[in-house]
């Protein structure tokens, strides 16, 4: 039990393995909204078809006491199998994917293309006046890329939210 009594706000990435049943996502989201916890990002998808399991990755922030409370409350939900605090458990890999639509011609279009090259963004759709870039990276890298594109004709962004997995050989 951590005994950090400070009110420092920490950011945590939490992975939750749940039964893939109707309403389970609403339960998790309702828990956060009902108890006033923050959600910075939340992703969910089935990960085990045979056992009907989904994995929810939620990025949240709060004091140490709040984060511990969030995990305890998540574990209390009946369809929840397991809760892991990836931030606490050591280094983890976090990734997010963004689709970014940029409209422009001439030098702005060339510049967008150059920057996309630097960030290793892929072009997944192109017209004479637009690109759609696909970029995978940390939330921070995506933010940097989008920041640059906003000067170069950015018109639309779609982001997946963070998915994360712990480093090393150990499984969930």
């Amino acid at each position, binding site marked *: *039990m951590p005994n950090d009594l400070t009110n420092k706000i920490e950011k945590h990435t939490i992975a939750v393995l749940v*039964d893939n049943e*109707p*309403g389970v996502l*609403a339960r998790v989201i309702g828990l956060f909204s009902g108890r006033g916890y923050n959600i910075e990002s939340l992703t969910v998808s089935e990960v085990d078809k045979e056992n009907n399991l989904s994995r929810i990755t939620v990025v949240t922030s709060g004091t140490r006491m709040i984060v511990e409370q969030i995990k305890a409350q998540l574990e209390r939900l*009946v369809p929840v*199998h397991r809760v892991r605090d990836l931030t606490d458990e050591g280094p983890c890999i976090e990734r997010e994917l963004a689709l970014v639509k940029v409209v422009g011609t001439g030098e702005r279009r060339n510049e967008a293309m150059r920057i996309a090259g630097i960030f290793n963004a892929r072009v997944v759709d192109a017209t004479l006046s637009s690109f759609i870039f696909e970029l995978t990276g940390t939330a921070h890298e995506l933010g940097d890329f989008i920041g640059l594109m906003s000067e170069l004709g950015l018109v639309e962004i779609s982001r997946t939210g963070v998915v994360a997995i712990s480093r090393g050989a150990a499984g969930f």
Partner: protein
Amino acid sequence: MAEQLLSGAEIILKALKDQGVEVIFGYPGGAVLPIYDALFKQNDLRHILVRHEQAAVHAAEGYARSTGKVGCVLVTSGPGATNAVTGLTDALLDSIPLVCISGQVPTHLIGNDAFQEADTTGITRSCTKHNYLVKDVANLARTLHEAFLVARSGRPGPVLIDIPKDVQFNEGPYVAPHEVRHKTYRPQVKPDLARVEEAIDLIAGAKRPIFYVGGGVVNSGPLASKLLTAFVRMTGYPCTNTLMGLGTFPASDPQFLGMLGMHGTYEANLAMHGCDVMIAVGARFDDRVTGKIADFAPGSKKIHIDIDPSSINKNVRVDVPVIGDAAHVLEDMIRLWKARQKRPDQAALRDWWSQINIWRKRDCLRYQKTDKIIKPQYALERLREAIRGVDHYITTEVGQHQMWAAQFLPFDQPNRWLTSGGLGTMGYGLPAAIGVQIAHPEALVVDVAGEASIMMNIQEMSTAVQYGAPVKVFILNNQYMGMVRQWQELLHGSRYSESQLTSMPDFIKLAEAFGAVGLRATKVSELDDVIGEMIATRRPVIVDIAVDPTENCFPMIPGGRAHNEMLLGPADRTEDSTPEDGMVLV
């Protein structure tokens, strides 16, 4: 052999019987007619027809809390389910095991805004421990058994199962309870022994210890109260109860300090404030108990025994969390306490008790005695004397009368005191009393009420009369929403905004209109006779006691204040007693 198929409605009733249900509290409607038809064709399950679905849930709470069994509720779709929401929330906050079955429109109409359709699982998701929508009769029996498991185990709570009408008609297989094993749900019952060792070391080393015991010990079962009492006596330490925990430690025991918290005793609150080791058992450090968190029991080490890991460190940071069922933990504690030959520090304990006895001498529940008007405390003292030695259960509504009942009525056993602690639901007491009386037909069941609260579910007198449930409604009638008036007097310059009840029914005529008995006492000299007649009457009774309208409930810790900043009576200054940030607290 071909598997025998049953209709959904038959599966429901078979599952309830296999789960040991004997009584269901409910109200029929279109979406549950197949279940009511199946009920008609059998004699094992008794159905109690209430007058409002909220009351069905409270009655089931009363039944559950007084028996230790799971309470069972049956309501229809739409308004039937939405009316049940207050009761479900009440059961969630007080950890009462319930299974509520609600009808739903047929599966093909779900989402069409059909007649009496409501998104019941959506609405009740945050006011149940868990809920289900069963769309396939093949899953029905399993889901029902799971619901009972979830409701009664771990930290108990209400579980709702929403069952569309077509599922009640469709035929499917039945599975017995023992064939169902839950995939994920495994509450921790047995404690980590290393934590128990840590706890008993701390307990043995204490100089100024206190046991702070809540409703979790009631939920654990009567054995937990026995073990708790044995352990507290073994140590010789003082013990206080929360509102929900009253009865877990005998009120008649000299080690009992009374209830703690906002309207708790002076000695209990000061002992909490001054303790060096706090042993919290099945209690959750709620705001009515802690007062100002920053000044709560400063400098104390805290042991927290709870079955719900999310209760640990939720409001107050504790030093030794022990997760497990109260009876299991206490059993291990007693065993290890003996095995390690632990002895309390007798010299320190003597000093601690002499300090506590000084606090006790303040006689904090003292009130102005008079023969000119019935003081509500006096009415309860007379009730206390009259029911001594009678097998009795007490329920309450919510407000001043509830706090006075907690202060003035002693409980030596668990499951005898039923009150809406967490949600504070006015209208809880009468239907809860009916639920208790159905479970204990021979016992004396008294709903200590206020005249405002009782109006919230007064229609249930009709239920009591129908089933010959001889509940007694003991109204302390002060012509105000007393607790609202008290707060307005203390915090809002005596501006009694909408808290006076200028038109109330004649409760004697009202009782008679329902087919019950009405009694009234307006003078001190009438009180004992009225109470005696109430107890002697084997029919439902409403007793209207005209009490002092201006009486306030003390002691009181004003919002935002600490345990050592109590108001002991009307003479204490109140104007500057509540800090501004305390005003916003409820």
